[in-house]
């Protein structure tokens, strides 16, 4: 059974249709990539899944239960976590406090500050942020803030992680490290991942399946090599199809 089922989801902003009857499934343990040009509706899709925005139509089911219409904190409780494309750290709080919050209010609902901090410390260790634990999050570099964004999401112990352009703005070396990180977490945590990425090379290398959005519509879906050969994808990325 699929873990996430998106069915005919529509989202429009004052007449502009950002998502136009988008449907797809994500299976348990899968790593699915989402591609598309700017304005294709990728981030809107994440916001609708995570509950930050409400869909105008269609349904979203997570683990067989409807989650559309729930508040973001309730969806987080079900086991869905997202990162933000434009990172949103709790700037004046330390890196450790940022991640501790995820443990306190995520699925674990940890009551003890001490246990939560210990758990957050472990996550920081894995994301190589331990040496920055006591620094206010606003003082981190972009690469570190992106890792913090991932760390805080992972701290909520999600079953499904939505990664929104975690590689954008990173140097090639940093991007490679981050790609490796995503691969490790996917392999070791039995984590289902849905990721938006502009760095097509990374997306092709990581994803088992890719969905292509264009002007709010799903125009292609398949394995990376299928999608790369798909004439609709090519026309979106390379201009009108040459026939």
């Amino acid at each position, binding site marked *: 059974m699929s873990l996430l089922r998106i069915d005919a989801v529509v989202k429009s902003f004052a007449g502009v249709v950002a998502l136009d009857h988008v449907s797809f499934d994500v299976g348990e343990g899968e790593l699915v990539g989402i591609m598309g040009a700017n304005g294709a509706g990728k981030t809107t899709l994440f916001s609708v899944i995570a509950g930050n925005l409400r869909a105008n139509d269609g349904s979203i089911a997570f683990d067989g239960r409807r989650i559309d219409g729930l508040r973001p*904190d309730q969806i987080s409780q079900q086991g869905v976590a997202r990162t933000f494309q434009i990172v949103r750290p709790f700037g*004046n709080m330390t890196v450790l*406090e940022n991640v501790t919050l995820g443990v306190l209010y995520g*699925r674990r*609902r940890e009551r003890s500050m001490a246990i939560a901090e210990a758990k957050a410390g472990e996550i920081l260790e894995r994301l190589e942020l331990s040496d920055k634990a006591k620094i206010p999050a606003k003082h981190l570099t972009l690469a570190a803030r992106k890792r913090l964004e991932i760390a805080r*999401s992972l701290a909520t112990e999600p079953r499904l992680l939505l990664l929104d352009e975690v590689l954008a703005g990173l140097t090639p070396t940093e991007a490679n490290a981050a790609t490796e990180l995503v691969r490790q977490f996917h392999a070791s945590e039995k984590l289902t991942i849905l990721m938006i990425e502009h760095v097509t090379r990374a997306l092709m290398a990581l994803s088992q399946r890719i969905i292509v959005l264009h002007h709010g519509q799903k125009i292609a879906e398949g394995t990376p090599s299928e999608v790369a050969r798909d004439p609709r994808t090519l026309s979106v990325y390379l201009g009108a199809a040459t026939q």
Partner: protein
Amino acid sequence: MMARIGRAASAVTAVALLAIALPVVANSYVVGVCFTLLVWIALTESWIVISGMTGYISLGHVVFVGIGAYVAALTWLALPIWLMLPLAGLTAAALAMLVGYPCLRVRGPYFVILTFGLSELVKYIVVNIESALTVSGRVLFGAPGVETLYLIALALAWVSVILALIVRESRFGAALRAIRENEEAAETIGVAIGKFKAAAFVLSSIVPGMVGALLIMRSTYFEPLEAFNPQTSVLIVTMAVIGGSDRPFGPMLGVVFLVLLQELLWTNLPQLYMIVVGALLVAVVIWLPGGIYGRIQRMATAAAR
């Protein structure tokens, strides 16, 4: 958590216990000034639970003071003080609960204006009720002396400081600060923001309600325009901002500073007081964004290096 707040809480408690002896050793002028100090500490420390923690700046906290005062005026001599005080606090809490959810849906300047407007609204409701009842001011006969009131103020100040300390270091407070830093991110990692903001707002209203009851026992006279005077709200914000509003010890510095300033100016240049306060607020926001406490902390960390 307990260990972290333990030291600060014991220090506060020790000072409070020592302060119980003040009326024995000091004259009533000094006790009166200290009463004023404690009242403002109780108000600002309560205020930071909502505004310092979540960044939702309430410019209407006098509404809780006023409503508490009104409860005291209405039940005066009908209820004993030990029953009337908690009732004043609970009434303020009920009001906070009623208006909290709708008000806390708007952020930034909108929330500031809404709280201000709300306190004015309640003020004029009370004014109209009183005039419909053809009451112009209520006199409280037989109120306790300043020594007794001082002790109640001390207890309320102690409660509010301890509450602020606990909230600052607790799981609950961590969520409130996350709301201040980025509400959408807080919600996305599982914080039920609506509930938390409302809870903080209610917590921040109880002591001010009791302070309201205390204040009219001191003045022995209830008059709505005075009890709901918006100047009180402005002073709370100014004291917290001048002191530095994130940690409980910051506002205390602001209170001491402003109350002493008030004592000084009141005798010499009373008409200048609010002008000086306004100028100070502007100066602090521009040149001392972390307040006095923030500056001390920065100097301390610089010295430690």
